[in-house]
């Protein structure tokens, strides 16, 4: 290479090339800057409105305000579920601050042990950024103020006041009302009411069971919002009350239940397992629906520990099961009215006497009456009063299962009623058709099936609600009453239960069966005479006892043995209505594994609950306080409570009636 700068042409050539190319690159630069300008114009002039909106949605945040959850009240306005203030501690996570150290700092002010911190950290992992997580609920005022004073040094921490659900009557309504609990990921849906952002609010609770679940949307109310200006971390800079949207509280749900009856019913259940249902025989309103043992729904609101949950779930008396609706039991002798109505409908003469020698050899086995010594010749009235099994074995065998099934369905067996809350199990009402389609391994209906069917065993099961409905329909004497649990929602009355068709039985037959029930409780030889005396003057109760076997005894074991393990004892049932002249209330009591004889465990409890119900009724009260008409004859022994005043304990000499 020579010395290029010496040659003028060379220099010129290089300079020329440079100038041409510099124009080109300059052009590129200009074009680039123009492109930037064009892009700016596009963003800032054409799309400005769109970005202004986005900017405003960055700057202004609507902080969701959960509406107060609607109240649940009983028929008299007594509050069954309400809300109370709750100081809680919320922490949000963002990209900048890890929640771990924040929790460690907070542990100086509120009790947060290592295990709880670890649980919270897992929860933080599941939660999206900027969605607060509740670190602690129900702080004391001291803790609340300690956190609030230090708020400036604690980024992403807020202590605020929310509301928490509270059930003032503890477990009395746990199964009916259910409870609310934190929202699970499974609760969230893409669309519909469960897609709303309020569900992510840490204070939000969703109805889990019973009324809380069935009327969740009514109880929720409408979410409000507070307009605030926030910075990128989501911290509030200013608030703008003018832009607030007020929250609309949830609707009030009024139940037909009566708090006094309900609470007394749970009390009388004591340690027993079972259900008590009280129903108005005229309107169909349910005044009491108790399942025992119960649980404290308030604990579910706070969130159960695993140990607590296991304790409830593993207890053999199953507190979490609603025995009034979801537990189905053989109705036992309480089914005999149904068999009787079916027999009357099928043309059986009620005056026909069937001899009860205490046992009956049929189909290769001996069918026993509960009274091994036998009742002697029985007509239908006596058979119900004495709860004679032999009579009903014969009648059931004669009329067959389909008559019985028709009568059972008319009285409410095998049905789920529209009472507004989910969870009813219908039980079984056996018939030839049913067995043919449902029992795969033995589809043929055998005569022996009819025999046990007649006394409410075998292919017949019912829940407590169905038994109460049956009793109320019998007591009402005309209508196929439907039960009603929800009286009104947000002030709108729900349809009453007495808008129903008539029962498909003749008045004569119904009167006959009811008279037999009166005899059960008021004839001195009735199976539940002693346990059915209300002590309310001429306000008398009619009923029917029942025992349901949980295992086949077949004459092997002693049914009456008190040494039998709890889980193998018979279920003890009683259905009743009162007063006998103008029936007002019907009751069904199931004592799971209560032992032999409906009168021992179930009837005294039914009597006490019935007394409470009757004494609350102004009509009945007026009747009781009036002077009694002069007694004309004294063929009845004195009526009243046990000498020690206890109404619960079975009478000491209470026999063994079924």
């Amino acid at each position: 290479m020579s010395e290029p700068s010496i040659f003028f042409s060379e220099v010129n050539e290089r300079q020329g090339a440079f100038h041409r190319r510099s124009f080109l690159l300059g052009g590129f630069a200009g074009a680039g800057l123009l492109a930037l300008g064009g892009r700016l114009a596009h963003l800032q002039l054409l799309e400005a409105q769109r970005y202004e909106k986005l900017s405003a949605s960055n700057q202004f945040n609507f902080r969701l305000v959960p509406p107060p959850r609607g109240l649940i009240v009983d028929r008299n306005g007594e509050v069954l579920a309400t809300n109370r203030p709750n100081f809680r501690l919320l922490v949000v996570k963002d990209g900048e601050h890890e929640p771990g150290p924040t929790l460690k700092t907070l542990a100086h002010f509120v009790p947060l042990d290592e295990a709880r911190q670890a649980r919270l950290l897992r929860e933080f992992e599941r939660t999206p950024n900027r969605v607060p997580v509740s670190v602690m609920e129900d702080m004391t005022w001291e803790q609340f103020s300690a956190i609030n004073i230090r708020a400036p040094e604690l980024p992403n921490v807020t202590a605020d006041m929310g509301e928490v659900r509270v059930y003032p009557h503890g477990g009395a309504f746990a199964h009916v009302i259910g409870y609310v609990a934190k929202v699970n990921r499974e609760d969230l849906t893409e669309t519909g009411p469960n897609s709303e952002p309020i569900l992510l609010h840490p204070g939000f609770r969703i109805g889990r069971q019973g009324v809380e679940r069935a009327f969740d949307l009514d109880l929720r109310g409408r979410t409000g919002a507070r307009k605030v200006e926030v910075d990128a971390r989501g911290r509030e800079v200013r608030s703008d009350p003018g832009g607030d949207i007020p929250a609309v509280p949830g609707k009030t749900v009024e139940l037909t239940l009566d708090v006094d009856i309900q609470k007394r019913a749970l009390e009388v259940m004591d340690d027993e397992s079972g259900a008590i249902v009280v129903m108005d025989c005229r309107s169909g309103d349910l005044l009491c629906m108790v399942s025992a043992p119960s649980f404290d729904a308030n604990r579910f609101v706070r969130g159960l520990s695993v140990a607590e949950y296991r304790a409830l779930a593993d207890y053999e008396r199953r507190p979490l099961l609603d025995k009034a609706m979801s537990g189905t039991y053989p109705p036992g002798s309480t089914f005999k009215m149904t068999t009787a109505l079916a027999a009357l409908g099928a043309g059986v003469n009620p005056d026909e006497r069937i001899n009860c020698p205490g046992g009956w050899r049929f189909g290769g086995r001996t069918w026993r009456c509960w009274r091994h010594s036998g009742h002697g010749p029985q007509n239908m009235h006596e058979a119900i009063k004495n709860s004679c099994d032999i009579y009903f074995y014969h009648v059931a065998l004669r009329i067959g299962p389909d008559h019985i099934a028709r009568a059972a369905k008319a009285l409410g067996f095998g049905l789920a009623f529209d009472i507004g809350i989910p969870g009813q199990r219908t039980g079984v009402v056996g018939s030839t058709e049913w067995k043919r389609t449902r029992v795969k391994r033995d589809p043929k209906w055998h005569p022996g099936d009819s025999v046990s069917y007649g006394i409410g065993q075998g292919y017949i099961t019912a829940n407590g609600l169905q038994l109460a409905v049956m009793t109320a329909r019998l007591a009402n004497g005309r209508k196929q009453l439907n039960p009603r649990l929800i009286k009104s929602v947000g002030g709108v009355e729900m349809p009453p239960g007495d808008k129903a068709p008539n029962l498909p039985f003749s008045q004569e037959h119904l009167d006959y069966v009811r008279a037999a029930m009166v005899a059960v409780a008021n004839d001195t030889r009735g199976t539940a005479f002693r346990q059915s005396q209300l002590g309310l003057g001429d306000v008398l109760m009619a009923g029917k006892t029942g025992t349901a076997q949980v295992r086949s005894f077949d004459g092997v074991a002693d049914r009456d043995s008190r040494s039998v393990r709890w889980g193998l004892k018979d279920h003890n049932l009683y259905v009743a209505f009162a007063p006998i002249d103008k029936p007002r209330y019907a009751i069904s009591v199931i004592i799971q594994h209560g032992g032999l004889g409906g009168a021992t465990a179930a009837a005294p409890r039914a009597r006490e609950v019935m007394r409470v119900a009757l004494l609350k009724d102004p009509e009945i009260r007026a009747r009781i306080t009036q002077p009694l008409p002069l007694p004309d004859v004294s063929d009845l022994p004195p009526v009243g409570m046990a000498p020690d005043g206890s109404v619960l304990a079975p009478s000491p000499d209470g026999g063994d009636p079924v």
Partner: protein
Amino acid sequence: MTMSALRRPGERDRLVVKFTQIDWTMAFALCLLAGVGSLMMFSVAGSSWEPWAGQHLFRFGVCFVLMIALAMFDLRVWFALAYPIYGIGLALLLAVEFVGDTRMGATRWLDIGFMSFQPSEVMKVGIVLALARFYHGISADDARLSWWLLVPAAMIAAPVLLVAHQPDLGTAMLIAMTGAAVVVLAGLSWKVIGAAVISFAAAVPIMVLFVMHEYQRKRVMTFLNPENDPSGSGYHILQSKIALGSGGLFGKGYGLGSQSQLNFLPEKHTDFIFATLAEEFGFLGCALVLALFAALIFMAMRTASLAHSHFGRLAAAGVTATFTLYVLINGAMVMGLAPVVGVPMPLLSYGGTVMLTVMIGWGLVQSVRVHRYSEVTSGKGAFV
């Protein structure tokens, strides 16, 4: 001062005369831009000189004096130091490779006791000087297409590869594009340029898929679809676009930009300061600033074309190319047209190293301007 006075022998070498020959319009434009930067930093700090605005002005002042001082250096000095500066830069890059500080997964810093700095910054000026020095010594034909061109190719490739390995893809690209600009300006054959463009276009997808680091690939993917991940890595671009767009024609007013004031905008005082400006002063403010940049680039290119020496031309044009690339890349990034790469807006963004590099570059341009008539004769060939 008249032209005749300047023709007196030795007159041009007098310091006072050199001082008057500085392009003061250009210097004023630089001051204006730095002032705008400081103004925005004052705003985003909540009307406070602390911690950025005052420091920015101070740094600019120091660098401005440095620029004037550098402008006094004769082009021959620049010429003589061209290869040594490039060599030192390369040596420092090699040193970084072996003993550099690793911060945030990238080895870019060299600790020299009282301060640490990025040798890649030295290279931004070094590559321009070395290439200008090289092309000064070869003929137009050789510059068009010859085996000599392997030398500039190697000169560019060495620092680019070293910087890319740190990894600092943004700076590597900047150096590569600056070098390419000088090579093109020096008169590279169009056929070669065409071939290079085509092979580059073909290489990009391969680079993205196989050579890039995971975080780099993520940035590219985020750029292609920022709404996909609005609170993660797409956050920067989205928030920046919101800031720009919501500014509208007139802006939200000084100190009233909600995006920057409430910290929605990331890096609001450094890489994304242009978005802050756009939010508070709107399209009009941005257009004015872009016009100021355009004017600066135009003045610098004019300075380059007025230079008598090929070295001066190429050096000034190379610096201009670097500066232009800074502006275009940062602008495109802020406006959501390019992936988020750590390229600041020169003069506006807060940051000492960049300010120093940029002002040294402008010192070189001013030096070319002051010594535009000087013939650099000491170079007799490409290397000697």
